[in-house]
């Protein structure tokens, strides 16, 4: 199973495949063999985690997310015309930008594409292609941060036994993606845009709150009481759109198997833990494995890892330098 196909199928909702022995490189086989003989020192690993406690990328990401959204808000509030519009479509110093999923919905519904929208869509495509696709989700989407805070509370509730977490099939998002695309095309209305928490929260921040925030509150309530991060994981078509961009993006998280303890802390903090299937002992197909397209490049796993086995990587940049 090659990386491209595996990454794409996981993005669309299939469970990770168990790599066969033929899939693995001779080098990684040596490492796996070596690790088989090693004893897992639970206490030492726990201590390593306790000493590590890093929030470097979390801090950077939250600051970025807040700054980007604040830039939208201040541009309008102070009339400085830096970043006009909302996340669905905007102008940065007069240069058009358009959210890829919003642009897709409008194009399918309206069946025309104005040059401004073409420019805006191309700009945003190139931007997120360079930055990793679903990077949009964790570094920019204002719903994401609300959802992250709700998730923190949800996990507390689960710990206390007040609520139970329910998962869904990840393919649900792919099915919804096609249904929303078909609805836009056949009804001529941008159906998803009407319920998109990303657009709703972005507009509420910039133009003031409305009753429609009740819908966002309702989704958050379900995430709190019923299913961890269900909107981002199983429903949001924006995530799939940017995931497809991330599929071909050079910026991703890369896993180095050598020093990994395989304790699985990274998978616990991950929004999309299936992409980290490769960190399970014996599963890595090479000494270095790039993490798949569904990864939001949020860096929580990088923060969680005490052995530096997970890192950001820009494909080809190391060779260039």
């Amino acid at each position, binding site marked *: 199973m090659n990386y491209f196909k595996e990454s794409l199928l996981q993005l669309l909702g299939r469970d990770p495949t*168990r790599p066969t022995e033929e899939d693995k490189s001779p080098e990684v086989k040596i490492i796996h063999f070596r690790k088989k003989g090693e004893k897992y020192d639970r206490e030492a690993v726990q201590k390593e985690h306790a000493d590590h406690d890093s929030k470097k990328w979390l801090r950077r990401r939250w600051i970025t997310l807040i700054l980007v959204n604040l830039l939208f808000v201040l541009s309008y509030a102070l009339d400085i015309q830096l970043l006009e519009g909302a996340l669905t479509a905007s102008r940065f110093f007069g240069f058009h930008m*358009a959210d890829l999923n919003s642009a897709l919905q409008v194009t399918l519904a309206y069946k*025309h594409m104005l040059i401004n929208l073409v420019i805006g869509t191309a700009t945003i495509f190139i931007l997120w292609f360079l930055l990793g696709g679903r990077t949009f989700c964790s570094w920019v989407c204002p719903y994401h941060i609300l959802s992250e805070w709700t998730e923190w509370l949800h996990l507390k509730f689960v710990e206390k036994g007040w609520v139970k977490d329910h998962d*869904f099939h990840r393919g649900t998002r792919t099915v919804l993606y096609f*249904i929303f695309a078909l*609805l836009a095309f056949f009804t001529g*209305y941008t159906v998803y845009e009407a*319920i998109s928490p990303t657009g709703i929260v972005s507009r509420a921040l910039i133009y003031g709150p409305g009753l*429609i925030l009740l819908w966002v509150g309702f989704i958050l309530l379900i995430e709190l009481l019923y299913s961890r991060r*269900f909107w981002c994981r199983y429903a949001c078509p924006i995530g799939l759109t940017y995931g497809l961009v991330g599929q071909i993006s050079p910026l991703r998280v890369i896993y180095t198997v050598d020093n990994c303890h395989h304790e699985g802390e990274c998978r616990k903090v991950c929004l999309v833990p299936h992409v980290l299937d490769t960190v399970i002992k014996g599963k890595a197909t090479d000494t270095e494995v790039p993490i798949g397209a569904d990864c939001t490049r949020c860096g929580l796993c990088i923060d969680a890892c005490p052995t530096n086995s997970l890192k950001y990587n820009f494909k080809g940049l190391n060779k260039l330098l």
Partner: protein
Amino acid sequence: MSKKKLSKPLAEKARRRFLRSLGLGAAVIGSSLVGFYPVLTQSAPRLRPPGALKEQEYLASCIKCGQCVQVCPVEAILLGDLEDGMGAGAAHIDARVQGCDFSCDGLQCVLACPTGALSHDTDYPHQIHIGVARIDKPKLCLAMQGKGFKGKVRDPSFTGKFRYNEIDRWNPIPVRDRDFDLEICDLCVIHCPIEIRIAQCDAGKPPSGDTNQCPPQHAIELRPMVSSDGIKRLEPIILDGCVGCGACEMVCPTEPAAIVVDMESILAEG
């Protein structure tokens, strides 16, 4: 991938998850379809900003970014909320709160629109069709009663703005900053942006020095009424040049407004 038969509890778990996922999908799609209700029943009809395409095309193409909101000098443009359904986040105008007075001259909202929901084929104010004004409450109309108007327009909560060329060529000011003293009320006519433009053109000073800005048709005029009681009454007559900007509805001093703007989309359906 090897197909192993799942153990009974695992199979049950998978079955439950499948049903849950089906439920989730149906709930998300179902919720999104609720948005069709206000659109199909027209429970919240809206005036759209200048240059807006036909209602259905408009809602198809509006990307809900609010760039038109940001450029409007009189802040006439609002965004739809929950009650607008599919129109949530799409731009509209509430003429009574703030009409479009074209004080931007160049139809800035149209220029700002990234998708062409506000059609870029629109260049001049007289080309737009937001709606058409209509005398909704003739009995309230001061001119039709032969009455004048003195003082400030509407109640203190009214925040509407208008650009008065004779006061400030560039900046709109609150309408309530002005005191009027009219022998017979003609507020709707003196605030009509189309009539103002025609007057400028007639005086040889078209807006921005561009004769293309001159509207070809009048929008509103006051005509003397025949009355038996000897009182001099005037009736506002809406003419073909009316674009539905809503300035007249905004400044109409009666409560409710004697003159209102009807939506183009509803007019089209008769």
